[in-house]
C-alpha cells in the first residue's frame, strides 16, 4: 500500500516513491505512469465517498442482516432466533397487510407516474407560448419537501373544506357522497397515490431531456415515408425514449416500495391500518416497539422484493429498451 505522505510530485506529474532517501540512493527510482497517477488521484477523490459507503451503507446493511436473526431491543433483551423473525413475519397479519398496501401503491404509482410524466413531457416539448413558464410550473412540485407536500394535501383532500371535494360539489356531487379521502379505508391509499403523482415533475424533466435528444432526421425520414403522428410516436419517439423510460421505471420501483413520509405524516398508517406501508411498519416495530431484529427482517424482505422487481425489469429490458446503434 502506498504511503501518501511519502509521495512527491516531480516535474510535470511524475510521482516518485521517496520512502527513504538512503534507499533511494541505492535503488533505482520507481516511476508511476501517467495512467497510474490518474487512477491514484481518482481513487483519492472518491475515497471519502467509498469509505462512507462501506461504513454507513454496506456496514449498516450487514449489521442489520445480523440483527435480523436476533430478537433484540438493543437495550435489555438479546436472543438468537435464527430465521425465527422471518418465519414470524409471514404469520403476522399486519406485515401481510403492509405488503399488500405497499404493493398496491407501487403497482399504481409506477405505471401511472410513468405515463403521466411522459404525457406532460410530450406536451411541454411542443412549441407553445410560455413553454418555459409551463415547464417551471410542472417541475415546481418536485422541489417541495415531503412534509410540505403532506401539509398541502391535507387541505386539498380535507373531506369537509378541501379544494377537491369543493370542486366535486360544484360538479353536482352531493356532499354526503363525497369521498372522505384519508379518512376512508377505500380512499386512503388512492389519496397518497394522488399526492405522489403531483410530484412527478422530476420524471417529466428526464423525459423532456430524452425527447430533446432524439435526432430530428428520424422524424423527417418517417414523415417522408408517410408516418402520421401516432406512428411517429410509436415507431420513433417511444423506442428512442425507451432507455429513459427504463431508467425512470427502475428508480420509481425502488422509491415506491420505500414510501413512508406521506403515511407517517398524514395518517400514521391509519385508518384501520389502511395506509400501513412496509417502511411505516418497520419504523413502528423498531423505534416505537423496540423489536429491532424483527424490523431488520422486514428491511431485508423489502430489499429482496425491490431487488426482484428491479432484476425483472432489467432482464425484460432486452425486449423493450432500444439503445441507438445496437442491433435487435
Amino acid at each position: 500500500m502506498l504511503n501518501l505522505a511519502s509521495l512527491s510530485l516531480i516535474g510535470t506529474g511524475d510521482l516518485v516513491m521517496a520512502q527513504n532517501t538512503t534507499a533511494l540512493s541505492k535503488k533505482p527510482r520507481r516511476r508511476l505512469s501517467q495512467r497510474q497517477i490518474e487512477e491514484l488521484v481518482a481513487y483519492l477523490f472518491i475515497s471519502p465517498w467509498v469509505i462512507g459507503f462501506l461504513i454507513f451503507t454496506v456496514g449498516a446493511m450487514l449489521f442489520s442482516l445480523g440483527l435480523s436473526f436476533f430478537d433484540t431491543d438493543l437495550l435489555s433483551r438479546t436472543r438468537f432466533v435464527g430465521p425465527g423473525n422471518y418465519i414470524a413475519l409471514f404469520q403476522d397479519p399486519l406485515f401481510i397487510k403492509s405488503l399488500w398496501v405497499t404493493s398496491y401503491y407501487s403497482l399504481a404509482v409506477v405505471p401511472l407516474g410513468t405515463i403521466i410524466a411522459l404525457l406532460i413531457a410530450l406536451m411541454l416539448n411542443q412549441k407553445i407560448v410560455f413553454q418555459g413558464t409551463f415547464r417551471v410550473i410542472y417541475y415546481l412540485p418536485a422541489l417541495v419537501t415531503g412534509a410540505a407536500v403532506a401539509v398541502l394535501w391535507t387541505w386539498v383532500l380535507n373531506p369537509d373544506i378541501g379544494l377537491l371535494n369543493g370542486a366535486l360539489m360544484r360538479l353536482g356531487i352531493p356532499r354526503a357522497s363525497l369521498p372522505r379521502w384519508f379518512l376512508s379505508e377505500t380512499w386512503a391509499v388512492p389519496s397518497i397515490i394522488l399526492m405522489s403523482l403531483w410530484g412527478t415533475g422530476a420524471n417529466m424533466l428526464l423525459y423532456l431531456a430524452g425527447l430533446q435528444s432524439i435526432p430530428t432526421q428520424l422524424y423527417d425520414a418517417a414523415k417522408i415515408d408517410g408516418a402520421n403522428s401516432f406512428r411517429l410516436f410509436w415507431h420513433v419517439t417511444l423506442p428512442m425514449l425507451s432507455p429513459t423510460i427504463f431508467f425512470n421505471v427502475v428508480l420509481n420501483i425502488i422509491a415506491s416500495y420505500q414510501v413512508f413520509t406521506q403515511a407517517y405524516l398524514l395518517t400514521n398508517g391509519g385508518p384501520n391500518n389502511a395506509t400501513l406501508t412496509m417502511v411505516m411498519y418497520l419504523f413502528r416495530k423498531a423505534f416505537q416497539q423496540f423489536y429491532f431484529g424483527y424490523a431488520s427482517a422486514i428491511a431485508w424482505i423489502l430489499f429482496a422484493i425491490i431487488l426482484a422487481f428491479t432484476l425483472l425489469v432489467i432482464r425484460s429490458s432486452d425486449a423493450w429498451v432500444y439503445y441507438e446503434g445496437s442491433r435487435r
Partner: protein
Amino acid sequence: MSQEELPRRTISRRSFLSMLAFSSGASLLAACGATVQPGGQSIASDSESSNSAAEEASRPAQATGPAELRWEFRGDEVEFERAKANIEKFMEKNPNIKVKVERAPDEQRDEKLVTAMIGGTAPDVFEAWGDIVYKFADKDQILDLNPYVSDLSADDLKDFYKWQWDGFAEFNNIRFGMPKYVNIMCLWYNKDMFDAAKVPYPDKSWNHDDYANAMKKLTIDSDNDGLPEVWGGWIPAWSWDRFWYRLPMWGGDVRDANDPAKCTLDDPKSQEALEWTRKLMWDDKVLAQPLALGAKNWSDAVFYPQKAAMCEDGTYPQAVARNVAGKFRWGYQHVPVGPAGIRKVLGTTDGFCIWKNTKYPDAAWELVKFLSGPIYQEDQVKATGLLPVRFSVLEKWEKINVEQAPELADVNLNWAVEALQEGYPSSRRVFKNQNAAAEIIVPALEKVYSIGDTPVSYLAEIAQEVNKSQQ
C-alpha cells in the same frame, strides 16, 4: 410475533454486539462499534431485567468530582430561554453541578431518545409521561426514584396531588420520575355560540344527557345535508389517550382494575359509554366527525375557527387565549358527570425522568427535585400557564394566568383548582403488553369513530384478541 415459540438462547449484550460487528467485517464496523456501547450492563431477558429493576432498592453510586448533567428540555424557544435562566439559579445553589440544557427535537423526539439510549448518549434528565414511559421502563432505562423520594419531607409530599404522585409508580414497581406539570381534560365552550342558540352555559351540575341535548341545540346544519357547518361538540374519541375516560363514567373500563392482561371493552357498561359517543357522532351528527387523521385532527381545527361550540381538551389557558385572540368569548367547565355518578378525565403524569445510565444520579436527583419544586413550578406557570404539580403553587395559578392574560378572568379557571382538589383526574390504565394492546385497539377505534361504518360491538369483539395478545 410469537416470541415465545422462538428458541431461547440468551447471550450477553457485549458478545452479541461483538458477534454482529465481527460478522459485518471488523474494519467496517470499527467506527460503529464505538457508538453501540450503552454503559456495559449485562444483558438479561425482559423478565429478568424487570425483576432486577424491582429488586434494586438502593441508590447507584455516583462518579466522583463535579457533576456535569445534560437536561433535554421540551418546550418552545421562549420557554427554553426561561428554563436556562432558572438553571443558572440552580447552579448558583449547587456549585458542584453543571447543567447543560438542550432543546428536545420538535419531531420524532421519542425515537431519537431511544436511539441515544442505545448509543449510550441519552441525556441525564429527560421528560416522559404515562403514555410513553412504559417503553423506557420496560427496557430498564429509567432510574427508580423510590430510594430518593425518601429525602422529601411529609409536608413536601402532601404538596403533590396524590393521584398524580401514585401515577408515577405504576410501571414495573419503579417510580419513573418527578412531576413536571399536570394537564387535565375539561370542557372548552364558545359563549357567543351558546348565547346565539339561547342555551345556558354548562355548569358543574351537567350530566351527559345535558351535554348531548346542548350539542343538539348548538349544531347548525342549514342545508340539511347531514354535514353541519357548526358542530355541537368535539371529543377525540378515536385517540388512544383520550377515549378511555368516558368508560369509568358509565361504570366500565378499558382494562380490568386488578388484571393488566384483561381487556374489558366488551363489558356492557363500557359498550354503553362507547356507543354514547358513536351515536352522537355518526347517527345524530352533532358531535364533530374527524376531519383529518393524525396531528391535524385536533381541537385547533374546530374550536378556533368556530366550527364546534364545545371541545373536550386539555388545560392550556394562555395558549387558548392567544389563539382565540378576542374573536369570541369562551369559558372552561368540568367535563359533565357520567350516568354512574362518576366524573373522570385524563390527568397526565408528565414528569422529569433520570436516565439509568447517568454517571451522576445524585446530582440528577437534585436537579429533578428543583424542577418539581415551588420556585421552578411558579416560573413555569408564568411562562406557559400550565397547571403546576403542587397545591402550594396551584393557589397562585389562577392569579398568575390572569396577570399574564387579563381576558382569562372571564373563563372560569377555578374549575381546574376544584378538579385537582377533588382529585377526580387520573392517568390511564396500562396493559401488561401495552404495545400489543395498542396495535389492536387503535385501528379498531379508527374503524368505529374515524371511518364511522362499524358498530361499537366491534370493540367488544376485539377485546378477546387483546386478551390473547397479553398472554
